[in-house]
């Protein structure tokens, strides 16, 4: 039997991540976001990272001191972010990343969300590039290759391969087969398929192989290399209900 994919701790699972890695972080809002792996990487300290993620902040279901990309940025670990939002979606929000980006301390590549997903799908599917109608005629297309098909203009986009994918799943078996729950799937399987090494934080106890019917597997274990069961709070990070987060923030803030 081959080496076990199950790791005892988040620290063990990220110990060998080298400086300069390209890492995809799954999740949309906080759903499916690898909160615990973010925390472990901030402690591990790898630098010069290129981070790929839809956005850099989990939103209202993660306390403001909860680990997202923010600590990696304030630690000086991040060189570049590839994402669909460099600015917050609401004027009232503050993003650590936006501040660093606007001051020129971090590079960013802003990509339409569907293009971001498809670039990783392409990397995981052996497709080097593709044409998309998104962003045609905009500032993003300036100076770039376009081509007409059947009378319509399309923009050339390149595959986005990753060194590592950090993702979160609902269930896993010890072969690494994964299931996601509700909107948790989002970018997670795409990042895993685009990556050389996929590290997964798993919500439910890890199942013996065979416990997930092959027809019900959302992401086959051949794309998955490391599994860590998330411990209960407070040792492990879990999303919380917005009202609970607001209560905790209010209790912490000085009066």
């Amino acid at each position: 039997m081959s080496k076990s994919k199950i790791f005892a701790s988040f620290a063990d699972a990220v110990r060998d991540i080298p400086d300069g890695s390209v890492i995809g972080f799954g999740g949309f809002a906080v759903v499916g976001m690898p909160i615990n792996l973010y925390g472990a990487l901030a402690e591990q300290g790898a630098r010069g990272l290129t981070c790929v993620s839809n956005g850099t902040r989990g939103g209202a279901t993660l306390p403001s001191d909860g680990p997202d990309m923010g600590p990696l940025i304030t630690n000086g670990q991040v060189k570049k972010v590839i994402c669909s939002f460099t600015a917050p979606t609401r004027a009232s929000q503050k993003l650590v990343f936006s501040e660093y980006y606007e001051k020129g301390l971090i590079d960013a590549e802003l990509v339409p969300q569907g293009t971001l997903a498809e670039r990783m799908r392409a990397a995981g599917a052996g497709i080097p590039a593709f044409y998309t109608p998104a962003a045609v005629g905009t500032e993003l297309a300036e100076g770039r290759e376009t081509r007409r098909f059947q009378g319509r203009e399309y923009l050339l986009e390149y595959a986005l391969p990753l060194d590592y994918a950090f993702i979160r799943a609902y269930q896993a078996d010890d072969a690494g087969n994964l299931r996601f729950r509700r909107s948790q799937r989002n970018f997670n399987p795409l990042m895993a398929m685009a990556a050389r090494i996929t590290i997964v934080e798993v919500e439910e106890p890890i199942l013996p192989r065979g416990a997930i019917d092959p027809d019900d597997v959302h992401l086959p274990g051949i794309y998955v290399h490391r599994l860590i069961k998330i411990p209960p709070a407070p040792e492990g990070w879990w999303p919380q209900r917005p009202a609970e987060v607001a209560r905790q923030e209010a209790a912490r803030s000085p009066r």
Partner: protein
Amino acid sequence: MSDAKGLTRQQMCDRLAMEFEDGWIVNLGIGIPTLCSNFDFGDKEIIFHAENGVIGYGPLTGPGKEDLHLVNAGGQHVTLRPGAAIVHHADSFGLIRSGRIDVTVLGAYEVAANGDFANWKMAGQKGGGIGGAMDLAACARHVFIAMEQTTRNGSPRLVERCAIPVTARGVVNLVITNCGLFEITREGMALKEIAPGVTVDEIKATTGCALRVPREIPPVRLRA
């Protein structure tokens, strides 16, 4: 313009929602457009799609009842309607790009008379927030915009040509503001319906492009 006249944001979205046809797949952007899902569609079956792969979501959940695994495009916790399905992001945008979205309703900073619109980057801003707007705007069968008539300092949002970077070109069909309903036609911007208490002169004064106004201008329909 005083609060006593014009449309509320819910009334704006109700008016756009009246245009949705039975069986349409509808994608609502973040902000004002999310209110379209509060409209009573009666016998019409409307399928709401969220860019994060949720097909067939329902109303927002009440406090304390949130399913922490389930959000819409704005990160709000929603419910699922019977018959819902969930896909990953590449499939979600695959169905957007392949033209399966009948209408997307988006917010905007500016809409131009030629159907261009801008909603991802303000003047002078470095970077911005695109999200799924460029994919949706380029590929949905109809693009509706819900926005205020003017900026906070009173500048028109309906303009001849967008001054800030556009999201997509020549795609907008219909615009609702607090002052009225506007259609983008081959001949440019046309006023279709006017909000209660608002005059045509007020609309002309707050519109930054040529506006075709019919002799008889009906009020904005508030109920189907």
